[in-house]
């Protein structure tokens, strides 16, 4: 905190911002956070942040006091890399604000509405003695109340909605018997929470207050005094974890989520140093408490991998030594194949992290770094402040909980692609091997046996399309971010030419990898959005899409395609895409990027080694 004060005093605002935003992710103590919020305010006045890729408009609605949540929420959201504008509705006016299409909240046109209900906003509780059937009816009615409110709001104000579920109450009037008694208040709340999760539509994201409160203990989570005095929904002890948890859902909605977890080996995945202690000397597996703790950490990491998080190794070791436990110790839960990159060498870790990001075609800010050695953490923090560095304790039993609390991998949907991602990256590695054994690149492409499906946006793919729109940074011409509702609007708009591409090859399915959207205005087609996953770079997909779009444009009587390249820190890759495809530079109508046009009549299609299919 003193460091921050000093940086601001010296006028080193860029460093002050990066220091502040790092702290906004990691500090959980309320007093320190409140102080950070004050510095945040001052820094915004002195040196506003440069233009950010996305500023989220957040409406905060509550059946509790939300004033004291606003500043911490702003800091927590901005710490994830987003800009943030918050509009707060008055205490307990959320029903009116949401139903009325002309309310201040509706007129604010939020990207995200946070609906913070508490147990005090439950309309009807079960009566003593109610049967299970009656309680089930009440559960349905309670869900109808909340989800109906969301639906009505969404009708006139399409946006994503973050809806709190309910923590259990701090008392148990029926004692243990409550668990067997449907009309018991906590019994009822648990049923409501499950039903909310089951019934919430795609635009409603449940903020799992029940789970989070359980993590801290309801007595610590909820402070009756401040509820009675000021209707504070969460204790000050837990206020920061609450806003950080909420912010992470918002971050995830716009793709601000890490993708790859980079792990050290010695004393991180196992106890001891493999180079010194040898296979017999390291602690991993059953029979020894410390070994079990490391095994449990590996099991947690395996679960992350299975839900689509990429794992990589970055260890100061001889590679041969580093690989030994993976090959020779059956106790190792993680195997060499679970990692998409394996860097065991003596290079400084920041160099290895940069290489890992480059090999995987992801940004350095998509990396999370876990290392037991504080010196390594420090050098990564200093050299690569974009990398999220996890502060570990010296006890491996703490590792899974620490990583879990950091919440770096929050997601709002889980697509089939997520579940297959690791396999896809591994097949990419195989493709690279194939590539090196074949001389001519075109031969290589032909040997891949590629098949693509190109279709307009479809409801069943909206989640994946939205996800791709919000997380693609490199092959992305306009970096236009859209919420699911906005994507859906484009799907339904007859003046929009929308398409997605799925690609398969002899190694397997790459999934949905490219998205395009252009708006027809008179005889022009304005390209709003064109992006592609970097997994399939240099395969001919961009040429294929261009062929397809020009063909469609001709069919629609379009006489000119207009595309813009809007530069960001990350999309240098596509700076020259339009000229390479035969577009001609337009006189600079805007100063925000370069603008290009193409006459469909003068376009001759590119040859590509991809077969178009109806389906595969």
């Amino acid at each position, binding site marked *: 905190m003193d460091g921050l004060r000093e940086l601001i005093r010296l006028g080193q605002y860029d460093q002050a911002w990066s220091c502040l935003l790092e702290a906004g992710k990691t500090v959980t103590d309320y007093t320190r956070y409140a102080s950070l919020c004050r510095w945040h305010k001052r820094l915004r006045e002195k040196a506003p942040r440069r233009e950010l890729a996305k500023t989220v408009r957040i409406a905060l609605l509550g059946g509790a006091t939300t004033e004291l949540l606003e500043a911490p929420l702003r800091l927590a959201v901005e710490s994830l890399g987003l800009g943030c504008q918050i509009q707060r509705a008055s205490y307990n006016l959320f029903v009116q604000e949401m139903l009325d299409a002309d309310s201040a909240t509706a007129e604010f046109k939020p990207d995200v509405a946070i609906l913070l209900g508490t147990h005090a906003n439950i309309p009807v509780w079960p009566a003593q003695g109610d049967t299970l059937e009656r309680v089930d009816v009440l559960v349905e009615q309670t869900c109808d109340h909340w989800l109906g409110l969301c639906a009505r709001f969404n009708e006139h104000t399409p946006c994503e909605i973050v809806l709190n579920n309910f923590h259990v109450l701090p008392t148990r009037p029926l004692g243990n018997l409550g668990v067997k008694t449907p009309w018991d208040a906590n019994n009822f709340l648990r049923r409501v929470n499950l039903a909310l999760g089951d019934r919430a539509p795609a635009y409603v994201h449940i903020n799992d207050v029940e789970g989070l409160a359980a993590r801290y203990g309801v007595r610590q989570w909820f402070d009756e*005094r401040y509820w009675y005095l000021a209707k504070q929904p969460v204790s*000050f002890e837990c206020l920061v974890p609450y806003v950080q948890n909420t912010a992470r859902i918002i971050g995830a909605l716009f793709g601000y989520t890490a993708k790859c977890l980079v792990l050290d080996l010695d004393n991180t995945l196992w106890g001891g140093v493999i180079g010194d202690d040898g296979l017999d000397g390291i602690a991993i597996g059953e029979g020894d408490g410390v070994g079990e703790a490391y095994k449990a950490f590996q099991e947690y990491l395996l679960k992350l991998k299975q839900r689509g998080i990429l794992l990589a190794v970055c260890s100061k070791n001889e590679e041969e030594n580093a690989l030994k436990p993976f090959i020779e110790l059956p106790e190792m839960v993680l195997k060499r194949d679970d990692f998409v990159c394996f860097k065991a060498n003596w290079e400084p870790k920041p160099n290895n992290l940069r290489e890992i990001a480059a090999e995987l075609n992801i940004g350095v800010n998509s990396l999370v770094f876990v290392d037991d050695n504080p010196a390594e953490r420090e050098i990564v923090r200093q050299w690569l402040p974009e990398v999220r560095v996890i502060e570990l304790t010296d006890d491996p039993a703490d590792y899974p909980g620490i990583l879990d609390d950091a919440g770096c991998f929050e997601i709002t949907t889980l697509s089939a692609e997520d579940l297959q991602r690791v396999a896809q990256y591994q097949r990419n590695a195989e493709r690279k091997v194939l590539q090196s054994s074949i001389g001519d690149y075109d031969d290589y492409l032909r040997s891949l046996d590629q098949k693509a499906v190109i279709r307009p946006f479809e409801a069943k793919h909206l989640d994946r399309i939205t996800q791709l729109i919000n997380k693609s940074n490199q092959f992305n011409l306009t970096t236009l971010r859209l919420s699911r509702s906005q994507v859906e609007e484009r799907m339904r708009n007859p003046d929009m030419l929308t398409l997605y591409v799925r690609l398969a090859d002899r190694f397997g399915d790459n999934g949905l990898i490219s998205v395009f959207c252009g708006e027809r205005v008179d005889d022009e087609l304005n390209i709003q959005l064109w992006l592609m996953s970097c997994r399939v770079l240099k395969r001919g997909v961009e040429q294929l899409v261009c062929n397809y779009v020009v063909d469609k444009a001709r069919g629609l009587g379009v006489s000119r395609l207009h595309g813009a390249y809007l530069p960001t820190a990350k999309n240098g890759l596509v700076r020259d895409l339009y000229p390479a495809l035969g577009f001609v530079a337009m006189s600079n109508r805007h100063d925000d990027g370069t603008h290009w046009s193409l006459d469909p009549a003068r376009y001759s299609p590119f040859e590509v080694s991809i077969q178009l299919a109806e389906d595969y």
Partner: protein
Amino acid sequence: MDEATLWETLTRVFQDTFEDDEITIGPETTAADIEDWDSLTHIQLMVAIERAFKMRFNTGEVASLANVGELVALVIQRSP
């Protein structure tokens, strides 16, 4: 904690809470003397004091403490 340190800490808490490094307080200071001291900043102030002195006020105390002299007396009484 001696009384001088107590006053120093308490002044710092006031300055932080009201975001004003110029604020000075004395035993006679009340909510009427500080412009931004309203019901909401009162809660923030009480929480900040609880946390700075690692003590817990009861509900009635949080509600009624609007005078720095009383506050200091209570903090002294609760200090180990």
